């Protein structure tokens, strides 16, 4: 029964794409939303009734599904987030044909792939073995490629989509190795087998898993693929950053944390990667002026914080922060899309839509504050939990987490004030007019803001008890001084954010470099170009040297045949023949002259035979290939005939 969670969105996607030709905007949105809703209901049922699923490919290969604690959180959150995003996409991205009734095929494809994306992600979080996980892991990547390259007509877009796909697929290779290592050690692919591995194989498997998770979660050094992914439409980014794709990495770590943490280098490595990404990503967000890229950097940073939580031994905390972050980040992306509709670009400095869209600005404000980690919003609580978790390891770690929180407060403030702040007086007249957001668009945004607001209840002790009861995972005990330090840093971040947005943006090479992940995309592109150049070089090498060697051999053979052998043939072989003939003639003449022949017939026969033989031998040396072939085949036929006759006898 657990398969229904996967199959409903996947089959729904196929049906919608093939059967939705006559649907308009509303029809498309409604049917897609219905599919997601059914998935959501099924996920709820599955969590309550403990379904399982499995299908065997062969004796060794079996796909198994099982709900884990982490999986349950994801299985419910994914459709919950996808629902408003799908509704928004139907209205924001789908364009109508000239008859103004039916949707363009691109829009239909977008909606279908969004559904497939949800299905693949459900498969990922339900998987109970590495084979199923790998299938889902790669499918999610393929879906994101299809979604990012939605506007394939623009020259740059397919390149960016390919970059995003390839960077994450490099991570997927780790999962191939991990699955193979688990098989080598346990004879199967189940998660349970991971714990049974010996030290060497376990190390290999965990390294592979970490590589895969880091690439998907956009941690250092893979962070910049999220910038490439910005070539996709807004709903795609919203889904990609909140509940799918990027979330896959943290899911896997949280799911397997008990086994992964048995290796001693796991915790320090994961904390180091997470913290580095959180801090660097925060700086990138502070200086980034492209609305979506600012949010993308923030995504890396926030997932970095979740990594810290897992590394510190609190996967439950990471899950809670994931949920809180998912709703607010989806909402912020949708908000960025609405602002872009008004101004025609994602440049933050051109936006300032607070005056035109006050209601939406308010809703976005709630989510920005949550991203900033401001009490009493839910995301603030989960961030404090991460700081507390880090504090269990070392005090300075907790301080660094709080610092990362301060950075996120800064860029969240910048985003809010620049995208949805009041316009500066001198710029007010330049505001162009865009279409008002549709009800579906603003409704989706409000819904996400509402859930973000609702999540504030986790500050209540009763709610915390409930969470601890439902999720069988440990929460961290927060200390008061940590909370105070965090809050001070958050307020400081907000204040600096206010100051920064008042000033005119200054451009310098250093700021640009900081805003672009300190040259990381350039480095990745250099690697890609290196591979392509190597390919070109090898292609030339293959043509000139490998094949050249062959051609050389052939030419040598021809030369040998034409000059040397032909001459040899003429002078030696043929001369021999002529010699024999002459010898025969001489012999015959001698016999005839001396008249002492044993018999009259013999020499004549010899002469005639040798003359005839010489003639034929000369004729056969005609230099014409087909004559040779005829001769060879005749000879073969004779041999075959002899063989057959021999067998008969």
């Amino acid at each position, binding site marked *: 029964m657990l398969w229904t969670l996967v199959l409903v969105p996947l089959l729904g996607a196929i049906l919608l794409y093939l059967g939705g030709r006559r649907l308009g905007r509303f029809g498309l949105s409604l049917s897609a939303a219905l599919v997601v809703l059914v998935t959501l209901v099924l996920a709820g049922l599955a969590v309550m009734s403990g379904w399982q699923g499995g299908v065997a490919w*062969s004796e060794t290969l079996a796909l198994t599904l099982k709900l884990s604690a982490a999986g349950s959180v994801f299985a419910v959150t994914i459709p919950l987030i996808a629902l408003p995003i799908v509704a928004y996409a139907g209205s924001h991205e789908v364009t109508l044909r000239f008859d103004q009734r039916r949707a363009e095929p691109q829009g239909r494809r977008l909606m279908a792939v969004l559904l497939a994306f949800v299905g693949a992600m459900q498969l990922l979080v339900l998987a109970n073995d590495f*084979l199923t996980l790998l*299938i889902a892991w790669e499918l999610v990547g393929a879906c994101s490629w299809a979604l990012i390259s939605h506007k*394939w007509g623009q020259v740059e877009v397919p390149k960016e989509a*390919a970059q995003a796909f390839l960077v994450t697929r*490099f991570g997927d*290779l780790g999962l191939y190795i991990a699955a193979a290592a688990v*098989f*080598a050690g346990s004879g199967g692919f189940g998660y349970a087998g991971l714990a049974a591995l010996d030290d060497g194989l376990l190390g290999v498997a965990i390294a592979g898993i970490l590589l895969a998770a880091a690439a998907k979660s956009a941690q250092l050094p893979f962070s910049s693929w999220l910038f490439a992914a910005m070539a996709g439409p807004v709903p795609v980014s919203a889904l990609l950053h909140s509940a799918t794709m990027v979330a896959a990495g943290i899911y896997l770590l949280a799911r397997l944390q008990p086994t992964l943490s048995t290796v001693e280098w796991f915790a320090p490595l994961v904390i180091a990667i997470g913290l580095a990404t959180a801090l660097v990503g925060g700086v990138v967000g502070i200086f980034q002026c492209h609305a979506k890229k600012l949010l993308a950097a923030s995504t890396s940073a926030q997932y970095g914080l979740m990594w810290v939580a897992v590394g510190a031994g609190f996967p439950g905390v990471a899950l809670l922060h994931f949920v809180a972050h998912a709703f607010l980040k989806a909402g912020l992306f949708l908000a960025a899309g609405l602002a872009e509709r008004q101004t025609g670009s994602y440049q933050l400095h051109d936006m300032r839509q607070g005056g035109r869209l006050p209601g939406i600005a308010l809703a976005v404000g709630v989510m920005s504050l949550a991203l900033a980690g401001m009490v009493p919003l839910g995301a603030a609580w989960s961030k404090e939990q991460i700081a507390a978790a880090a504090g269990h390891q070392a005090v300075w770690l907790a301080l660094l987490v709080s610092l990362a929180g301060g950075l996120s407060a800064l860029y969240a403030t910048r985003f809010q004030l620049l995208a949805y702040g009041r316009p500066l007086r001198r710029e007010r007249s330049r505001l162009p007019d865009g279409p008002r957001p549709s009800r579906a668009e603003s409704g989706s945004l409000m819904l996400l803001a509402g859930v973000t607001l609702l999540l504030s209840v986790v500050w209540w002790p009763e709610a915390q008890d409930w969470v601890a009861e439902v999720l069988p995972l440990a929460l961290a005990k927060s200390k008061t001084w940590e909370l105070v330090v965090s809050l001070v840093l958050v307020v400081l971040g907000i204040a600096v954010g206010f100051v920064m947005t008042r000033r005119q943006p200054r451009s310098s090479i250093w700021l640009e470099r900081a805003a672009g992940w300190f040259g990381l995309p350039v480095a990745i592109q250099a690697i890609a170009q290196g591979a392509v150049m190597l*390919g070109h070089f090898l292609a030339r090498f293959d043509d000139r040297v490998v094949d050249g060697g062959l051609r050389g051999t052939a030419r040598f053979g021809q030369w040998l045949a034409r000059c040397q052998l032909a001459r040899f043939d003429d002078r030696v072989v043929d001369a021999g023949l002529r010699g024999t003939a002459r010898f025969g003639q001489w012999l015959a003449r001698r016999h005839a002259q001396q008249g002492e022949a044993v018999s009259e017939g013999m020499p004549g026969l010899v002469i005639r035979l040798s003359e005839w033989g010489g003639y034929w031998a000369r004729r056969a040396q005609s230099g014409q290939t087909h004559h040779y072939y005829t001769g060879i085949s005749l000879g073969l036929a004779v041999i075959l005939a002899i063989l057959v006759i021999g067998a008969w006898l």
Partner: protein
Amino acid sequence: MILTVAWIVPLMGAVALAAFPRWSEARARQCAAGVAALSLLALVVAWVGFDPAGPLFQHVDEMRWVPSIGVAYRVGVDGIALAVATMSALLFVAAIVYPVDTLGQPRQYYAWLLFLQAVSLGVFLALDLLLFYVFFDLSLVGMFFLIGRWGHGTPQVSALKFFLYTFAGSLFLLLAIIGLYLSLDPFTFDMRVLIEQQPLAGSGLYAGLVFLALMLGFAIKTPLVPLHTWLPQAHVDAPGPASAILAGVLLKMGTYGMIRLPFAMMQETFAEYSLVVGIVALVAIVYGALVALGQSNLKRRIAYTSINHMGYTVLGIAAAAALFADNQTARQLALTGATVEMVAHGLITGALFLICGSFWQRTSDYELDHYGGLAHQAPLLTGFTVLAAFASLGMPGLAGFVAEFQVFAGTFAIYPWLTVLGVLGILITAALFLDLLRRLFFGRLPAHLGGFRDLEPAEWGVLGVLSLGILVIGVYPRILLTLIEASSAILVRVR
């Protein structure tokens, strides 16, 4: 009996086509397609009647021929041969139905295709070494004429190069076969006896030389780097359907031969050299993928991906041959993966080369840079190419993944480092196919492609069937795996 029907029927079809000079093009094509489909049907019947719990070789036919030297007409299949043969028959039907310019000689074209089908199936069905060798060589003749007479560019040169190069491989094979034959007492060409007796086990240098000759012969056919340079040239000048057959069926003879001859008949010797074979396969994987990335010609690029994919197959075979490794499950997984790769690669690359044929029919141009933005103009073509490309780069849910995953998982248990480096191949393949899709279908449409037509029903019908096969194997490979595992389990067992 059913196997004899499977290869005799196309041969008789070829003779009939040659004998009736008045048939029109449509008639000749229908007749050829019908005959090829009959042959496919016979193999499907054989598949249904195959008992996975039964002996290694089933549906065996045997007839006295030349008993004094141990030659007999012997055909029979194990799961591996049956899977590859059925895939080949399907691909032949597809190649025959796919529309192509027959240059005014439709009868001859279809007759040669049917002849090639008969002898190709013969290679996979034969249980007699001499018969195997005869079919193996005759397949060269069929392909030689298909490339030389219906190719483009410099078809004569390419066909001659193809013929001579692969014929040189056959000579090595012949020497090795004689070597194997002479090692038996009493002399016989019966493959079952050879597999049973392992005559060269522990015979040192002699066995090594025979093994070397066998592997050289098959490596040229597969082809493995650096013996591969005949392949791209033959592909570029061959007509689309002939290319599909060349990549989908003829290359398989090399890897199938490796499993049937050295792997099954010389287990000990193969085990000794399995690491070397594995390293050569790794070179083929990485080198093939990188050179493919460097190509700007559509067909050459796909041709080089074949070298990469056949590398996976050989890697799987090499891992499965490592007798000394105690892990029998892993060896079986690798062998099964190698076989699935053969079937998957046949369908996927067959589809890709047919697509190349469609491009040639429309523009007579393979240069990637001359294309762009076709996604809107030709949505069906785009859809099928995207599917085949993703299948080729190993996307789960499609056939290639099932094969490559098993090869990697099985090989890792035996040669971990080969696997760790080998997976890089799927990354490079992904890069080159995404680049290919981008340059063909995305971006702006150049002005000269304004009249580019989308696929016709005959074309998308054929591609639809192949894609369905790719999808079915990718989603529910059980049908195929049951058949293959029945044999791979017996073959990897230590005797």
